[in-house]
């Protein structure tokens, strides 16, 4: 398959680009919710508009009422979300939670997917336990209790956690904290008793929750997939989230770069446009090259994931997903740093958007593993 968008994907991109640039614009969404101190960190009206556009259920199987599309299509949406810094539960809900739920029974799918597709349900991913992404270690425990489970422990930095209608929780049902086996995924409803949130605002104005589970009683219907055998499904969820976050970072980088290159063509100093200075030209050209490469890595990862959406993810896809997240992370970091620097003093002001790109990138860098984590993973998967 050629490494560019098919005609259908290009059409989707055109629609989505216009839609998000308009309704998801920085002024209408990010600045508004930030300035209103909104505790959800995103707008529910826009989420319903995503549903009307058919985006919320794009990864949901047609049999479950979705569009049955792939990671490449989801990436198209995420790139635009990134470019416009649009606060949205799309990545956690429509990419990660739907991937998790797809591995569940008819019951659990039937309970949650219709709401997601309709834009009424928001899901959050409760995986990390600590400040750094480290899903190899899961200490949060769910013990068998009667016909169900009793969940105890904590999850950290659960994006949209406090406002989500359902938390997808990766918990340990057997074994030691670092074991590969013994993981089970659960769909924990918002109102389950014993769930409490410490909702915090992050540097990018998004909201994340430190969630505590205090002997939360769950019936068997909360289980997604196999008890104790959730590692593979979790792997699929992580891969979807990582490839998605990489696409969003490529979008952030693209937005920051375009804004900066435009600025180089407007600002005059020393009687010249600053874009005439070779010191800046070469850095901009270098950034362009790096960003093109990051985009290629992202689409390659998406295509490899789409090529094996059933069953285990191939080794090649695993490596490429980490390559994509690492590369997009490094390049987006470069883009926002160069962006602020080349804007000079105004790059430091709240009034200009370039600083918002820097903040968003910082949060995305941590989400689902930073460039260091994924570089290390590439080495390990390659056998050294």
């Amino acid at each position, binding site marked *: 398959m*050629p490494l560019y968008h098919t005609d259908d994907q290009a059409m989707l991109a055109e629609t989505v680009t216009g839609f998000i640039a308009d309704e998801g614009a920085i002024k209408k969404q990010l600045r508004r919710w930030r300035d209103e101190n909104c505790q959800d960190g995103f707008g529910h009206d826009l989420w319903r508009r995503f549903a009307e556009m058919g985006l919320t259920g794009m990864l949901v199987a047609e049999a479950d009422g979705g569009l049955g599309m792939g990671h490449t299509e989801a990436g198209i949406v995420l790139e635009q979300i990134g470019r416009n810094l649009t606060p949205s539960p799309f990545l956690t809900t429509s990419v990660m939670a739907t991937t998790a739920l797809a591995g569940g029974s008819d019951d659990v799918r039937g309970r949650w997917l219709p709401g997601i597709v309709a834009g009424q349900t928001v899901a959050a991913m409760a995986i990390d336990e600590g400040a750094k992404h480290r899903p190899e270690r899961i200490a949060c425990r769910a013990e068998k209790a009667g016909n169900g489970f009793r969940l105890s422990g904590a999850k950290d930095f659960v994006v949209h956690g406090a406002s989500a209608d359902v938390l997808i929780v990766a918990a340990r049902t057997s074994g030691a904290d670092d074991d590969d086996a013994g993981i089970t995924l659960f769909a924990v409803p918002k109102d389950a008793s014993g769930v409490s949130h410490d909702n915090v605002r992050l540097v990018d104005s998004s909201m994340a929750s430190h969630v505590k589970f205090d002997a939360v009683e769950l019936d068997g219907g909360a289980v997604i997939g196999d008890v104790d055998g959730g590692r593979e499904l979790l792997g699929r969820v992580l891969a979807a989230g990582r490839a998605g976050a990489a696409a969003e970072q490529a979008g952030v980088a693209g937005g920051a770069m375009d804004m900066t290159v435009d600025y180089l063509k407007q600002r005059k100093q020393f009687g010249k446009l600053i874009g*005439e200075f070779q010191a800046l030209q070469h850095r901009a050209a270098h950034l362009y090259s790096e960003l093109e490469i990051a985009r290629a890595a992202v689409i390659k990862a998406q295509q490899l994931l789409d090529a094996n959406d059933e069953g285990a993810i191939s080794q090649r896809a695993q490596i490429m997903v980490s390559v994509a997240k690492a590369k997009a992370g490094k390049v987006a970091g470069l883009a926002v740093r160069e962006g602020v620097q080349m804007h000079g003093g105004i790059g430091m002001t709240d009034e200009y958007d370039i600083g918002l790109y820097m903040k968003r990138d910082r949060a995305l860098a941590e989400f689902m593993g930073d460039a260091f984590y994924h570089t290390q993973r590439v080495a390990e998967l390659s056998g050294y």
Partner: protein
Amino acid sequence: MSDLEAFRAEIRAWLDANCPPEMREPVRTEDDVCWGGREFKFKNDAQRQWLESCAAKGYTVPDWPKEYGGAGMSAAEAKVWREEMAKIGARIPLSSFGIWMLGPALLKFGSEEQKRHYLNQIARGEIRWCQGYSEPGSGSDLVSLQTYGEDKGDHWVVNGQKIWTSYADKADWIFCLVRTDKADKYQGISFLLFDMQSPGVSTKPILLISGNSPFCETFFDNVKVPKDQIVGPLNRGWDVAKYLLGHEREMISGAGGGDRTAAIGAAMNRMSGGVDPILRAELAQFDVDALAYAAMGEKFMDEVKVGKGHPAKSNMMKYAGTELNKRRHELVMASGGSAALEWDSEGSDGGSKARNWLRTKANSIEGGTSEVMLNVIAKRILELPGVS
């Protein structure tokens, strides 16, 4: 089975039957590369047989039209060909400036007669070409070149000097930029082809830091070039030259995949029985960049074949690919330690690590320097003002 899968099966069977085992070994030294040409000495029968079998099927230039010596493959088929070659580690049957540079320019600008004549020769590896662009005073600023062709009716008389002419002493013919109008800088250059055995052509090899001597100073002293050996219109050679440079840059970029885009961390760790943690980290970062670049190469090639992508993109590929390749060889040296310093011992394949490391430093100079690539990106892609 789809047509493409059937095609893949056919290619696989053909390679299985025709690619000799020796030609599935990695290229280690310069004489492992088959350059063709009048004077070429094959290293062994396998090398000769591999070239001949491929040439007979048009596989030395798979996507050229059949009438010009190619196999007429579509973009998708040519990709299958590359993939199947890579799968068995097959060497390319013929390396040639004719294939990478002159051929594409002839396909676009050559007359029908020129195409039939020269392209078939190139495809069969009969004529080895060299490139006469750079001059002592005209490197990055190529358009300032001074080599002059005086109009003598049915021929030109060429005088001047070229430099850095790769393989000039081994080449049979040269494609050469010659000023034919002193009054017009850009529209005063013509693109000429001539035999290196023409009276008045002489070469003087230049020794490189790698200890090899693949390039020369090339002198023209009243060289007669017949008028039918011009490609494109008179004084419009700059268009041909630039188009050719696009292909040269694509070739140097390593976009086509292979060794230049592979990850190396695992092999380096094996080779040195484990490396220091900070070096390991650099290898891992390199692998991330290399694998990402490999995807870029694949995307670039896919897009080029269907006319997508920015026309100046080969400059970006050249910049990124060559800087990456230099880093690769720095890491090979660091991982190899003192063993990589050996210069001419048998155990080191005649110092191949050190010599390759030094050779790669030229990657970001030849075919246009990295700085010039960045200028072109800034100007043509980012459309920044006042690029010099």
